[in-house]
């Protein structure tokens, strides 16, 4: 009896201490503060192997060319570079454009692909992923998440909705001062399953075919980029 009491006392106290440590870690974890400005960027996404209709993404069997955007208060703050032929995309916080390489001087923060957000916990961030083709950018899926669900560190939104082509999307959330002072990033990994709302495609969108308005936008962006590039080159010369 005494032996059993000794064993039980030891185990209960050690397990109690371990559970308390988990609770402490959870309680001490930093949360979304409305007074803080956060730097947010999209680190990656995973899309389903087929589109929501159950068909291949492309008729030639290739994977989609993924581009993700982050929208806050109806303004698109961030668009990632294109991840070609991918079901799982990974993006860095920085990206260098060809036109940046032509410059003699580049500020480090000019290379950053970061959105800065200062919001109440109830405000929504919208994340949208598209499959960019030559002329169109087809809708894959989009979700909204309340800012309060995000915590400093890596936040992975897990989406389990057959109508949405998205499986997960990963954001890095860092207090803006951490980046500006060059401090290391928070290590915490946070998985979010609750509070995510899957968005339906806008009525004007054709999820399966050609989209003229997006195509027009892409062409306009292309023409602008080329003219900017040529203009800069001729000025340099």
């Amino acid at each position: 009896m005494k032996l059993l009491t000794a064993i039980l006392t030891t185990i209960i106290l050690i397990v109690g201490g371990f559970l308390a440590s988990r609770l402490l870690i959870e309680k001490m974890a930093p949360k979304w503060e409305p007074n803080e400005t956060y730097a947010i960027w999209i680190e990656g996404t995973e899309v389903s192997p087929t589109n929501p209709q159950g068909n291949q993404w492309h008729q030639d069997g290739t994977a989609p060319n993924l581009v993700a955007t982050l929208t806050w208060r109806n303004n698109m703050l961030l668009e990632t570079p294109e991840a070609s032929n991918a079901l799982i995309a990974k993006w860095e916080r920085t990206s260098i454009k060809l036109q940046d390489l032509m410059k003699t001087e580049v500020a480090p923060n000019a290379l950053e692909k970061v959105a800065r957000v200062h919001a109440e916990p109830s405000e929504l961030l919208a994340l949208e992923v598209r499959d960019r083709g030559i002329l169109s950018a087809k809708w894959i899926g989009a979700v909204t998440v309340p800012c309060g669900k995000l915590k400093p560190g890596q936040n992975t939104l897990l989406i389990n909705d057959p109508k949405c082509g998205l499986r997960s999307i990963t954001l890095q959330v860092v207090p803006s001062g951490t980046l500006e002072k060059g401090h290391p990033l928070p290590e915490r990994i946070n998985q979010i399953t609750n509070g995510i709302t899957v968005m339906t495609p806008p009525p004007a969108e054709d999820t399966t075919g050609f989209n003229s308005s997006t195509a027009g936008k892409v062409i306009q962006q292309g023409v602008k980029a080329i003219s900017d590039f040529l203009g800069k080159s001729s000025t340099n010369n």
Partner: protein
Amino acid sequence: MSLELKGSSLSMARFSLAVACFCFGLALGLPVFSLTPGVGELTGWLRLLKPDQMATTTQSLLGGIRLLWVDGNPFLACILITFCLILPISKFLILWGEAYGMPLSGSIWGRFCRATAPYAMVEVFVLALLVMVVKGLPGGSLIVIQTGAWCFTGSVLLSLFAAQLLKPRRD
């Protein structure tokens, strides 16, 4: 008078043991240290261009054992499991047995624990070695001892104190 003293020292020993066990449980889950990589003058640039590689990592005792196991070092993981989990827990069992008036030190398990007692401090040595090795990293890498290490130290000191209080009972 001596019986009274014995009673108070026994309750003190039990209290110390209880806190030591709780601290040991805390030490298993809380981070033991955090490592911030640095590469001298290039630190700022690398934090910008390769943030993943330059992120701070914190490690707990159980997390470290798991990492060693997953990274293909089962031998090192087993050594740490033996010295950081099995031996300290056995030591606590023996001490609780004695605190409940059932000396286990004469049993096979007690004799085994007494024989291996000097090695129960190996975990501290392993921790110190680890910190020293990582301290030697170039470029101003920063190691910060975290709460888990203090809990572990507290647990070791309290268990030593409890053992000292229970010693007259053993004798």
